[in-house]
């Protein structure tokens, strides 16, 4: 009886989500093992012992290389078959859920995505619907229980284990390399919306594309990124990649500065992972103000530049 954690990585770089998954796996009281595959898997494996992985199964096959949902899914399903764990899990990121679904499809097993609470034997759980705005209690009936934890449901903590790496030769059909990444376009180096310590967001009340300039200035002073609500991207004022929300990016900054955002459910579920929230709004009854730890009541067009000026003054 073991728990097998499916490790997502990008050419050896392991995201925080994989450490969250290893941390979550320790709650079952079973030996924690991990599975890695693909280009850079050996580098990825090296960081996993620190988070409690006793054994790391490295799935090897000629057809696995850079990320490919199908080839990786087949290789990782091979580890599940070879090691017969009772629970297999990941964190529900894009790649985490995609790989779990690939494994589930290949093994014809049920898979419960984005759990927030799981029973000791994983036969029942509470999971997120509507991006976290609604919870579903569900049961899971299978010999091998496949699930993912909702992102940020568990905070990653270290817990040293041996972390022995074992190579497992698996069968992967060469044709599955058809879904391998062919090319990459790097758009930004350094911090991103989902990793920024500070996110300064604006909603419909910002008013125009140009009126985001003061938000850019404040975010720049604080080493953060600018985000926005769905209304803003629907108006074409910002690219969709800046959208915080159920259909955009889930953020988890140290502080989220939400200006002129009412806090509709679809936005809130993208922002609720933030450690602190400061709302700037003219409406003291706005959902975002009510849910925020801190608020400034006023017009964002006046408040944001005043904060930027104060930041600059103190920095000297």
């Amino acid at each position, binding site marked *: 009886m073991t728990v097998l954690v499916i490790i997502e990585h*990008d050419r050896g770089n392991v995201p925080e989500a994989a450490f969250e998954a290893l941390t979550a796996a320790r709650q079952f009281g079973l030996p924690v093992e991990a599975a890695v595959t693909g280009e850079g898997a050996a580098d990825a494996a090296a960081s996993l012992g620190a988070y409690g992985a006793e054994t790391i199964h490295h799935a090897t096959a000629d057809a696995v290389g850079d*990320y490919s*949902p*199908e080839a990786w899914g087949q290789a990782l399903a091979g580890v599940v078959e070879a090691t017969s764990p009772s629970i297999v899990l990941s964190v529900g990121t*894009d790649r985490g*859920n*995609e790989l779990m*679904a*690939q494994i589930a*499809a290949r093994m014809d*097993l*049920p*898979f419960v*995505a984005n759990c927030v609470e799981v029973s000791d034997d994983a036969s029942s759980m509470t999971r*997120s*619907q*509507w*991006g976290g*705005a*609604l*919870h*579903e*209690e569900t*049961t899971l*009936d*299978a010999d091998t229980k496949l699930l993912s934890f909702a992102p940020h449901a568990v905070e990653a903590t270290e817990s040293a284990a041996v972390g022995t790496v074992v190579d497992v030769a698996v069968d992967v059909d060469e044709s599955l390399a*058809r*879904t391998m*990444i*062919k090319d*990459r*376009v790097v758009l*930004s*180096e350094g911090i*991103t919306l*989902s*990793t920024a310590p500070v996110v300064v967001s604006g909603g419909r009340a910002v008013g125009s594309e140009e009126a985001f300039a003061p938000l850019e200035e404040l975010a720049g002073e*604080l080493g953060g990124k600018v985000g926005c609500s769905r209304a803003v991207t629907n108006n*074409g004022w910002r*690219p*969709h990649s800046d959208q915080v929300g159920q*259909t955009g990016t889930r953020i988890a900054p140290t502080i989220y500065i939400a200006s002129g955002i009412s806090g*509709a*459910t679809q936005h809130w579920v993208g922002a*609720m992972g933030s450690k602190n929230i*400061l709302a700037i709004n003219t409406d*003291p009854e706005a959902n975002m*103000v009510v849910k925020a*730890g*801190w*608020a*400034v*009541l*006023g017009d964002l067009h*006046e*408040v944001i*530049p*005043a*904060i930027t000026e104060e930041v600059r003054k*103190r920095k000297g």
Partner: protein
Amino acid sequence: MRILCLVKRVPAPGARINITEDEQYVDDKNLGHAVSPHEECGVEAAVQLVEKHGGEATVLSMGGAESEEQLRAAVSVGIAKMVLVPTDGSPMDPQQTAAALVEAIRNLEEADGAFDLIIFGNESADQGGFQVGIRIAHALGRPMVNGIKGLDVDGAAEGHILANREIDSGVEVYELPMPACVGVKEGINLPRYPTMKGRLASKKAELSTVDAAAEAGGQAQVKLKSPPEVVNETVILGNGPEAAPAVVDLLEELGVM
């Protein structure tokens, strides 16, 4: 190109979500309905591909009879054909949903030939199982990549389609041999509004029905519940620009200066 897009009728997202007394459904009596946002963009992507490269797009929905509203909405923005796979509306688990849809798609393909591209939403707005499209693609033996925010045949090798996936630092490019499947995300395009001509066409369009069913899978919904409310005594740092020093005190305290 022959394209199939799958859409799901869901209560219009954004509003507060209430639950019915039996704790099994979202109480939608005061809510409008829409196509899941990712899938609405999937419909637009299908219409754009057909406009550019010719062919025909079909929209399919599995659900209660009222899903006809969402199918006709897709026709009003340029989809040629619509198909309903009727159910009694009770919750279905992802394995069951996928198996029934595989049967329906096979029926359609036996009659009229394979679809070059099947477009799913990345996940449904309501249940959000993150797997139905992947299960269907696997059953049909076709390549599938989720999270797609760009699709183009131009620039791809013969018989292939380029699919872009946005990640934190940039874009991953996939080149899938067709027939292929993709799960798209909102942001791949801005869906158009229907024209008057489109609305009229959607009223006249013929709705075809395909029956398909499947056994329940291993995941079973017990009940829905509201997540714990966020209870906060919001600290008001001040009014207007005069609050700036208090805000910056907070930023210093949190160590983000």
